[in-house]
């Protein structure tokens, strides 16, 4: 039998932790739904608030932990020296909101509820906040698992759902460019898409839809 590797041991840890991770994601999603219910009821017909949750899958968790090591490699001489508990996003909830004016409202409401969570916003190349991100623990259901929730403009979030698996975190089987240095044009396009989506939201707000009769 081949000797066990760090990856084997981390996979084993993953399945030991999985029941806890599931409890955390269910709890976090329920809390977020509860605390945003009043905003949801106030939404105008064209406004949207969608809550999505996910448990990080096993291979994604192993890869994510590996890439946190310098050189993206587990040290075989430190067998068993790695733990998935270092990952901040085994359990994750994403709150997609449109238009962006509502993003701030949802963000304020939730940050008032999750006061002990650390803010770790996703920034664009110029330092502007693209997504509000928070990391913390749901101590009511697990003292070990770190979770993450994000509140972000829906257009950016939906774009990332396509872009992230293809470009941002390519999987070995994907045909996406793995060499970021050679994907310069892709990076520029990505920035252009994000800018276009943000401009769309800004222009939309300028229309002052409140004054229009939207069915």
């Amino acid at each position: 039998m081949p000797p066990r590797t760090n990856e084997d041991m981390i996979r084993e840890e993953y399945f030991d932790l999985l029941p806890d991770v599931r409890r955390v994601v269910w709890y976090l999603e329920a809390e977020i739904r509860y605390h945003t219910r009043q905003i949801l009821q106030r939404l105008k017909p064209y406004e949207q608030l969608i809550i999505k949750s996910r448990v990080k899958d096993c291979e994604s968790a192993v890869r994510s932990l590996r890439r946190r090591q310098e050189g993206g490699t587990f040290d075989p001489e430190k067998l068993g020296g790695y733990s998935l508990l270092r990952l901040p996003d085994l359990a994750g909830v994403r709150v997609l909101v449109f238009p962006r004016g509502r993003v701030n409202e949802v963000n304020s409401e939730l940050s008032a509820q999750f006061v002990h969570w650390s803010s770790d916003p996703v920034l664009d190349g110029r330092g502007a906040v693209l997504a509000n991100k928070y990391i913390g623990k749901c101590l009511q259901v697990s003292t070990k698992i770190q979770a993450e929730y994000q509140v972000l403009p829906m257009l950016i979030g939906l774009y990332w759902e396509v872009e992230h698996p293809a470009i941002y975190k390519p999987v070995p089987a994907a045909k996406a460019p793995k060499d970021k240095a050679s994907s310069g044009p892709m990076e520029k396009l990505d920035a252009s898409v994000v800018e276009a989506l943000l401009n769309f939201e800004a222009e939309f707000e300028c229309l002052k839809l409140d004054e229009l009769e939207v069915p």
Partner: protein
Amino acid sequence: MKKDVLLKADYRYNFDRDIYFNRKVKKAFSLEFVDDKPEEEILRRIGENTNGGGWTFYFNSPPSEGVKRELERVLG
């Protein structure tokens, strides 16, 4: 920019391992090393004579023999 210095010297970026590498001269820079060191040092390391035998890794924390073996396998 430090990234441009590396690209100009024919280094490519391995997105999975977060390293810049050049197979011809068998050198690899970790992203952490590139982030933390000044451009002058990167330039100096690029020009450093390593006799071209095995791979040379420029890391903040020197990689173990096991990590070197794994990266050499990946980099080919």
